[in-house]
């Protein structure tokens, strides 16, 4: 069991060819393009959910911040759908790869920072020193705020990777424990199975929450810089 524990996180290949790009592109076919004024049930439900999310998320933004609406909605849909599809048995979850999450976090964070420095240079620089800081603390606080700025994309990526990876590992371990306990003690196996059910429900919630948290933090970084 030990050598199989991390096998599900390896980049998938079929007949020697990497298919990770196909897996990353797969969630897009679950969101059909609306082609009519009044669409079918699936598209109508998706449009309603997107409208609900975008209204809530873009409420804090000004005109400039709202130009990022498409980016933020695409982000939450992609991460949410990818995380949920990863809960299917034997499937590969792209968001367990730190490389992919860094590839999402760093450009988005850098975009917000560059936007801030370009359009509000004074305010962006002044942001590194909280208002009302006592004089002796100014140098150390500037250093701390600079470090915290550069940690933001790392935290974004590592948070998503760690949460999804940990959840998948737990499901794998507890599922394996349930199977192993069936022959030893049926009662213990049943209790472990109940724990597995509860954990799976938790992982469904975590999949959606992590998508929301990732997008919300990018939205907040944008709000600070617009």
């Amino acid at each position, binding site marked *: 069991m030990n050598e199989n524990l991390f096998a599900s996180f390896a980049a998938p290949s079929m007949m020697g060819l990497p298919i990770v790009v196909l897996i990353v592109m797969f969630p897009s076919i679950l969101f059909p393009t609306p082609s009519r004024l009044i669409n079918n049930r699936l598209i109508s439900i998706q449009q309603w959910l997107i409208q609900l999310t975008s209204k809530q998320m873009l409420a804090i933004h000004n005109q400039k911040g709202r130009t990022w609406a498409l980016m933020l909605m695409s982000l939450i849909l992609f991460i949410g759908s990818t995380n949920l599809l990863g809960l299917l048995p034997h499937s590969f979850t792209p968001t367990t790869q730190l490389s992919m999450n860094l590839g999402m976090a760093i450009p988005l964070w850098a975009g917000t920072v560059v936007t801030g420095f370009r359009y509000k240079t*004074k*305010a962006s*620089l*002044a942001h*590194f*020193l*909280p*208002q*009302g*800081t*006592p*004089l002796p603390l*100014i*140098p150390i606080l*500037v*250093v701390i705020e*600079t470090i915290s700025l550069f940690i933001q994309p790392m935290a974004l990526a590592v948070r998503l990777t760690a949460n999804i990876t940990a959840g998948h590992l737990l499901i794998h371990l507890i599922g394996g424990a349930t199977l192993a306990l069936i022959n030893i003690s049926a009662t213990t196996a049943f209790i472990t199975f109940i724990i597995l059910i509860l954990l799976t429900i938790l992982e469904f919630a975590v999949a959606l929450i992590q998508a929301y948290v990732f997008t919300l933090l990018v939205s907040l970084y944008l709000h600070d810089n617009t």
Partner: protein
Amino acid sequence: MAGPETDAQFHFTGIRKYFNSYTLTGRMNCVLATRGGIALLLYFKLGSKKTPAVKAT
């Protein structure tokens, strides 16, 4: 939120007009001064490491 409209309530004189932690300009100048100081420190520290002391013959 700090901004040009809230800066008008502060009346600093002398050097505190340009370096304080209340107005936008003051905070920006403090940040630039701190970073400039660190950059200068690193420049002289790294510069002194590269040129070793000349041996007396």
